[in-house]
C-alpha cells in the first residue's frame, strides 16, 4: 500500500496506544443517564418529552426545525426525572434530559432495511438527520448537513478518516478491526448520495492490521471505486485539512470547507453509524470510547450509552491513584474536566484519567520565548505561532489577523513543542475568538450606520 503524508509540520508524541488490542466491551448501562439536548455544532434542540414521561430506548427526546442540527435520542428506557441545566464536557452548562434507567431496555420499534441502493438521496439524508448522526471523531458537525453541499459544489471523493492520530485513543482502530463491513458500506452510502466517484479510507501506518483487513474486505466485495491507503503516523495527520493534503494533494482554501475542493472527510465511526442508521434504523444512542490513562484501573475500549456520567465510569472501572486530571478526548485537543458529573456525549472519543503525573506531562509555568522557531517548523498550517501569541498578549487583533490567526486549526502542536512551555494554542484560540467577536460587532455597527443613513435620507426627502 502506498504511504501518504502532508508537509510541512507535525509532531510525533508518544503513541501510548495502550488499549490497542482490547476488543470492544459493552459497558454497563448506568442507573441514570444525563443526555444534553444539544450535542452538535449548530442550532439548539427543544425537548420533546416532559418530566415524568416514560421513554423507550431510541425514542427522540430533543429536536428542532432548524437545518443545521441533529436530534438526540433516549439511550435507556425509563422515566424522565428532570430537564435541567447540567455541566457539559465543554465546560459550559446546558439543558439536559435526565432519565432514570428501569433496566428493561425497551426499544422503540425499528424498521430494518435490507439494502440502501434503491433508496432516494433525500430519504437517506432524512434518515441520517433523524437518527441524530453527527461527526463522531469529535467535531460533532451534523452529518446530514455535511452531505448536503450547495448545488454549485461537486463532491467527487469521500475520505474515510481512520488516521486516529491522537495518542491513547484506539476506538477508531477497534471499529476498523471489528466493523470493517459497516465502514465500507458507510462510504458506499455517502458516495451514493453525493455522487462521488471514489471512496478512500486513510489509515495511519501504526494501524496497518486494520488497513489490511479493510483492504481485504474491499477486495472481497469486489469494489473497484473504493481503496484503502496508509498515511504516515504523525500528529495531526487526521486533521481534515491535513488528510486531504496528504491523500489527494489538494488544499482547502483559507476560510473554506473540504467540499470547496470536492471532498467530504468522515470519521470511520460516523460511517459505521450511518450504515446502522440506514440498515438497522438505529439512532446514535451509544458510541465507542477509549478509557485509558495511568490512573484508571481497568483500561479498555467500551461501547457506552450516551449520557453515561463520568462518575459512574470511574466507579465501574476503578482508580489506582489519586485522580488529578480527567480529559474528555485526546491528550492534544481534549478538554480537562472540572467535575466528574459530566456525561458522555456523541463527540466523546476517549476518556483519559491521570494521577499526579499529569502535572508533569503538561507543565503550566511559562518561561520567556527564546525564539527557537520550533513552533514555526512544526505548525501543520504554515503559521508563525509565536508571533500570533505575542500579538494575542498585546491584544493586537489586527496583527494577529494579518498573521492568519483564523487559519489556526487549534491542534496544539505549537504548545506541545515549545521548550519554554508557553501556552501558545490557548492564546491563539483566545485571539481568534476576539477577532471573530470584533468582526461581529463591526458588522452590527455597520448595519446600524446604514440604517441611520437611510433614516436620515428619508427625513431629508420628507422635509
Amino acid at each position, binding site marked *: 500500500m502506498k504511504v501518504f503524508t502532508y508537509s510541512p509540520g507535525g*509532531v510525533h*508524541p508518544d503513541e501510548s496506544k495502550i488499549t490497542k488490542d482490547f476488543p470492544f466491551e459493552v459497558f454497563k448501562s448506568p442507573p441514570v443517564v444525563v443526555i444534553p439536548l444539544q450535542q452538535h455544532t449548530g442550532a439548539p434542540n427543544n425537548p420533546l418529552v416532559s418530566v415524568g414521561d416514560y421513554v423507550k430506548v431510541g425514542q427522540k427526546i430533543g429536536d428542532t426545525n432548524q437545518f443545521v442540527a441533529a436530534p438526540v435520542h433516549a439511550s435507556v428506557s425509563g422515566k424522565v426525572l428532570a430537564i435541567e441545566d447540567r455541566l457539559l464536557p465543554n465546560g459550559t452548562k446546558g439543558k439536559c434530559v435526565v432519565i432514570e434507567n428501569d433496566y428493561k431496555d425497551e426499544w422503540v420499534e425499528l424498521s430494518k432495511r435490507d439494502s440502501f441502493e434503491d433508496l432516494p438521496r433525500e430519504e437517506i439524508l432524512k434518515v441520517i438527520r433523524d437518527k441524530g448522526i453527527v461527526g463522531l471523531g469529535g467535531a460533532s458537525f451534523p452529518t446530514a448537513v455535511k452531505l448536503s453541499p450547495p448545488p454549485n459544489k461537486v463532491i467527487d471523493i469521500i475520505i474515510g478518516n481512520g488516521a486516529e492520530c491522537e*495518542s491513547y485513543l484506539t476506538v477508531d482502530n477497534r471499529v476498523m478491526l471489528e466493523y470493517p463491513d459497516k465502514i465500507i458500506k458507510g462510504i458506499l452510502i455517502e458516495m451514493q448520495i453525493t455522487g462521488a466517484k471514489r471512496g478512500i479510507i486513510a489509515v495511519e501506518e501504526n494501524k496497518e492490521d486494520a488497513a489490511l483487513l479493510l483492504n481485504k474486505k474491499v477486495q472481497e466485495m469486489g469494489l473497484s471505486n473504493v481503496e484503502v491507503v496508509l498515511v504516515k503516523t504523525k500528529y495531526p495527520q487526521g486533521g481534515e*485539512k491535513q488528510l486531504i493534503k496528504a491523500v489527494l494533494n489538494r*488544499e*482547502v*482554501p*483559507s476560510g*473554506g470547507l473540504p467540499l*470547496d*475542493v*470536492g471532498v467530504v472527510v468522515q470519521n470511520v465511526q460516523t460511517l459505521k453509524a450511518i450504515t446502522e442508521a440506514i440498515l438497522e434504523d438505529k439512532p446514535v444512542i451509544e458510541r465507542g470510547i477509549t478509557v485509558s490513562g495511568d490512573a484508571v484501573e481497568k483500561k479498555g475500549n467500551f461501547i457506552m450509552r450516551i449520557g453515561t456520567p463520568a462518575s459512574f465510569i*470511574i*466507579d465501574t472501572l*476503578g*482508580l489506582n491513584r*489519586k*485522580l*488529578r*486530571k480527567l480529559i474528555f*478526548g485526546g*491528550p*492534544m485537543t481534549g478538554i*480537562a*474536566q*472540572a*467535575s*466528574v458529573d459530566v456525561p458522555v456525549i456523541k463527540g466523546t472519543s476517549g476518556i483519559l484519567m491521570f494521577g499526579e503525573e*499529569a*502535572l508533569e*506531562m*503538561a*507543565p*503550566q509555568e511559562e*518561561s*520567556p520565548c*527564546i*525564539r*527557537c*522557531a520550533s513552533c*514555526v*517548523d512544526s505548525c501543520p*498550517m*504554515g*503559521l*508563525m505561532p*509565536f508571533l500570533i501569541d505575542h500579538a494575542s498578549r498585546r491584544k493586537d487583533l489586527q496583527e494577529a489577523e494579518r498573521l492568519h490567526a483564523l*487559519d489556526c486549526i*487549534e491542534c*496544539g502542536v505549537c*504548545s*506541545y*513543542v*515549545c*521548550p*519554554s*512551555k508557553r*501556552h501558545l*494554542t*490557548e492564546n491563539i484560540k483566545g485571539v481568534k475568538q476576539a477577532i471573530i467577536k470584533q468582526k461581529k460587532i463591526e458588522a452590527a455597527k455597520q448595519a446600524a450606520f446604514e440604517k441611520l443613513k437611510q433614516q436620515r435620507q428619508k427625513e431629508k426627502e420628507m422635509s
Partner: protein
Amino acid sequence: MAKYDIDLVVNAAPHIRDKVNTSSIMRDVVLALIPAMVGSIFIFGERVIVVYLVSIVSSILAEYVGNLLFHKNSSLKDFSVVVTGVLLAMTLPPSSPWWMVVVGAFSGILLGKMIFGGIGSNPFNPALVGRAVLMVSWPTYMTTWDKPRFFIGFPFRVLSLDAITSATPLNVVQLQSYSQLISEFGSKLNLYTSLFFGTVGGSIGETSAILLLIGAIYLFIRKVIDWKIPTFYIATVFVLSFVFGRDPIFSILAGGLFLGAFFMATDYSSSPKTPLGKIYYGIFLGIMTVIIRQFSSYPEGVMFSILLGNALVTYFDKTMPRVYGVFPKKEVSK
C-alpha cells in the same frame, strides 16, 4: 464519590508537552562545545582554562547583576548564560588577560542581552557583542596570537614548530601570501591537516574543524539547531572564495567560520525564524564574510558578518512560510 480520591486540575489543551525545555537545550549546546573546549586545552595549554573559567563566572555574575538592575526574576537556571560564557572565551586569543575577559563578559551580557530584556529578546549575539567591545577597546591584545603547543601534519605526524609564525593562517595570507603559508607548513596537506585538527594559531575555540563538527553533529541529532543556516553559510563561503581565486577548502577551515556558522549564527534569538529566512541569512553571512576577508583590513569577517546579519533579521523574517490554503494571487484554487 467518597470511594476515590479526586482532586481535578483544569487547564487548556494540549495535556502533554515535549520533554525538551530551555535549560535542556542550553545544556546540549554546552555539551556540544566540550570536545572543542578540551581540544583547545591540549592545543594551547592549561592557561586557556583560566580564560574559560573567568568568562563563565563573570558571565553568570553579569546576568545576576542584570537581573537585579532590571528587576527581573532570576534567569540563571535556564543555563543560557553559560553558553554565552563558553562561546565568548572561545572567540578570544589564548593569551587574553583575565581582566579583559571580565570586561568582555560584562559587556556581552549586559549590553548584548540584559538591556534588551534577557533571554529571547536580544537582537545581537551576546558573545559576539562582548568580543566586538574588546576588539575595538584592546585591538593589540585581541590580535596577539600564541603558537599552539604542537602541529599535526599529514598524515598524523607532529611537525617542527620552528618555522611557523604565531599569526593565524588568515593573517599570514593577508599580510604575506597563501604560498608563503603553505611553505611554512611544508605542504598543502600539512596545512589542511593542521586546520582540521586545530593546531594553528587563532582564537581559543575556533581552530579545530573536526571537534566543532562533532559538536555540531550532536546538535543536529538532538534537533537543537537547524541545518539551513550553517550549511548555506559555509557553502556560500566555499563558492565565493573560489570565485575570488582563494583556496575554497582553506577558506572554510581557517578562521572562525565553523564556530560562527554552527554555534553563533544559529543563536535562536538573533537569527531568522522562517525557513526561507534562514537560507537567505546563511547566504548573506557567507557573502559578507568573504567580502570582509577579501577587501577590508581585517583578515577575518565572521564576527562582523554575524553582527550585521543580526541587525537585519527583521528583514529576513519577512519571508513568512506559505499558509495552508492561502494561495499566491496568480494560482487559482482547485
